[in-house]
């Protein structure tokens, strides 16, 4: 028994080391003086300075942030309504179709999602002249669609766990369904909506493949710029960028975890 648990512990330790070593190395070598990313040449923050002088990266980061903000908000809206309809409404005709469509994007390869949406946009342009040009708008629609699938997973599990009696109480006291939803259901599932939004936001910020398909010549997102840089080999300013992103994500997760802990205690 002792031997077994030691074996488990060693495997798990190696597993975690495997997950974290590359990330830690990115951070360490972002402070490397030398241009050779993996050879240590002394401490320096010059790659950060370089990063903030690169207009292409700054512009792309701004475009990505805008897209992620709007698409995450849309994704949570669509995901919430879809989850509510699937969990709370009695059987309706399109139920299994909706259930299939909201889960399918989770397992669809990105290249297929990207290609299919691009071909849709091109076909629609031919038929009704919309969406005119491809760029920020088409990326937002694409990201909102697969973001909604992830958001729905988070929100559905919260709706299933939720105590139905509070909604019933509100209904018995004469509240209309819309009122019950906004005054009772929404506040209760709010933490799940926050997690869902953050998940959709991160996925949007991270997506290279779908954005590359549906984007036009005008709009380059941050992953698209990074990919074209990285294809040419490692470059230290990408390490600096990675460190900033890792720092922001860790900060976000710590803040959310603390917030959720506190709201759990208040309940």
């Amino acid at each position, binding site marked *: *028994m002792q031997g077994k648990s030691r074996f*488990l*512990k060693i*495997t*798990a330790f190696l*597993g*975690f080391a*495997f*997950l974290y070593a*590359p*990330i830690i*190395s*990115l951070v360490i*070598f972002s402070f490397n003086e030398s241009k*050779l990313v*993996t*050879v240590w040449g002394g401490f320096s923050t010059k790659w950060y300075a370089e990063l903030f002088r690169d207009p292409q990266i700054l512009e792309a980061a701004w475009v990505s942030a805008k897209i992620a903000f709007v698409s995450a908000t849309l994704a949570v809206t*669509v*995901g919430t*309504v*879809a989850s*509510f*309809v699937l969990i709370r*409404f009695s059987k309706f005709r*399109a139920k299994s*179709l*909706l259930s299939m*469509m909201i889960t399918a*994007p989770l*397992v669809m*390869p*990105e*290249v*297929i999602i990207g*290609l*299919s*949406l691009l*071909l*849709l946009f091109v076909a629609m342009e031919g038929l009704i002249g919309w969406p005119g040009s491809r760029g920020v708008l088409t990326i937002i*629609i694409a990201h909102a*669609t697969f973001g*909604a699938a992830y958001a729905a997973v988070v929100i559905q599990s919260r709706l299933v766990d939720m105590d139905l009696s509070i909604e019933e109480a509100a209904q018995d006291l004469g509240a209309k369904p*819309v009122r019950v939803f906004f*005054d009772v259901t929404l506040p209760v599932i709010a933490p799940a909506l926050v997690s869902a939004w953050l998940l959709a936001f*991160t996925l949007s910020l991270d997506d290279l*493949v779908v954005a*590359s398909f549906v984007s036009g010549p005008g709009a380059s997102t941050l*992953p698209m710029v*990074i*990919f074209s840089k*990285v*294809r040419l080999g*490692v470059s230290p300013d*990408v390490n600096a*960028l*990675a460190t900033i*992103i890792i720092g922001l*994500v*860790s900060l976000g997760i710590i803040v959310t*975890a603390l917030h959720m802990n506190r709201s759990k205690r208040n309940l």
Partner: protein
Amino acid sequence: MSMFAHTETNARSRLPGGKALGGLLQRLGLGGRGLVIAIPTLWLLLFFLIPFLVVAKISLSEAAIARPPYLPIWEWDDGLLNINLNFGNYLFLLEDPLYLSAYLESIKIAGISTLIALLIGYPMAYLIARSPENQRNILLMLVVLPFWTSFLLRVYAWIGFLKANGIINNFLLWTGIIDEPLIMLQTDFAVYVGIVYSYLPFMILPLYANLVKLDQSYIEASADLGARPVTTFLTVTLPLSASGIIAGCMLVFIPAVGEFVIPALLGGPDTLMIGRVLWDEFFSNRDWPIASAVAIVMLFVLVIPIMMLRKAQAVEEGAS
């Protein structure tokens, strides 16, 4: 809130015929309930389901130098509807060995990566599920945390690890284990590492969700009856976690088959994966019909794994 409700009623009473419109919608079956159902259903129909029909349609058209770069498959000609279905793209996929070997290679790489991820992920999930309750959430968070940082940058980090003068080679040269750098980057090995690394959390989470529910008394009963730990594991734990294993494996296998970023950054020029072939057909060759045909065939390849995933997830949900 009450202020909102107030202005809302005001706005409605100012709208002439608001009631009549509502009644009309109601009669069309589009009351409040219908509208609520319609929002996500229409969005997903338009931006998820219909696009696949468009892909299917374009996979049957002929490539052309035009904008967009394919010929229409139906045309009105003096009141005559001409339909030109071109199955040539699919025949081309069969004739050119490039595509068949890319499909097989993708399935092989995704399959082996899934197996490795299972071998690493199972002990980790088991350990987390057997940890004291207050440690579980921290360990789970450690598994999920890398998933929140950029996928592209995590794959990029492996370039620094695997390249000729990268971290692993520098370390091994320094210790004297090897005399000259190993060639790891731009090989299939690097692609395996990248896929296992990127998708490991997807393996661990469903396995954990399954193992944490496992009734400890079965294992104790088996031990009491004199079974050795290995026998107990093989005859009790493993069969009981089968649906978790299938769910985890499919969550790794399905996206790995169509993976583009990992073979593009870590693989060599001869690492043929179908996601990369589709990308090149589309972006380099601008052959949209062939790219569409590649996508449709990929969907058919993935139908069985997707069904297996759905079945395993249904079993898991039924068990909880």
